[in-house]
């Protein structure tokens, strides 16, 4: 299963980005192969519609879970219909590595 995590940088030590639509990078982690992929967010500077556009971008890659600090109002109805689970982490100090470790449970 693929899981997307929002990140402020493109290394495993980067912190979680607390915004979903306008995060700097998406980290796509594959639980089967334990591989990670860093995708720069092309919608970072969008005035409007960054959330739905980001959902579309990562849904195309077959992501089933998204971990972020918060989600905008337009995102939830879209992810509900795409059967993508949203996970909100209120602790912005966690690094991508730590989150991936938690996902391995």
């Amino acid at each position: 299963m693929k899981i997307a995590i929002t990140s402020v940088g493109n290394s495993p030590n980067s912190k979680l980005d607390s915004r979903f639509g306008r995060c700097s990078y998406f980290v796509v982690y594959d639980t089967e192969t334990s591989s990670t992929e860093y995708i720069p967010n092309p919608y970072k500077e969008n005035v409007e519609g960054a959330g739905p556009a980001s959902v579309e971008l990562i849904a195309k890659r077959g992501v089933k879970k998204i971990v972020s600090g918060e989600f905008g109002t337009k995102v939830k109805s879209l992810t509900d219909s795409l059967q993508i689970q949203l996970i909100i982490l209120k602790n912005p100090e966690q690094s991508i590595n730590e989150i991936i470790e938690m996902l391995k449970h």
Partner: protein
Amino acid sequence: MSRPKRIRKMTNPPHFKGFRPIGLQEENNPVVINYEEYEAIRLCDFELLGQVDASKLMDVSRPTYTRIYESARRKVAQAFVLGKTIVFEGGKVYFDSEWYACNYCGCWFNHPAKDEEIQKCGLCGSTDIAQYEDETLTNSIVNNNCNT
């Protein structure tokens, strides 16, 4: 042409397909209960809400809610008396998934795969989870009551 039906909002559909009477061999034509009718019975008779509050949760008017609820009760009665199978199917609804909180890692998550029961946290896999009370929803109901 009649006015199109308003789309009813519901939280969780039943995670099973229906009911079958005990001791009857033949399966005569089943009673089909829509998801909206199931939700009406759940809100009114399981959550013990008043019809006004329940109608707001389903995002329909109070008279419409009563019509849905009445149709649901009649179908249940028909199934009981005639020994018919009940099938949950169809209906004009959209799903609004609820939020859960994990007591182990402190995250919040929702559960869009409605037909499966939720058992563990999506992040850390802990089973120590609780349904998160949606304050904004409860607040909006309280506010609506103040306005009317």
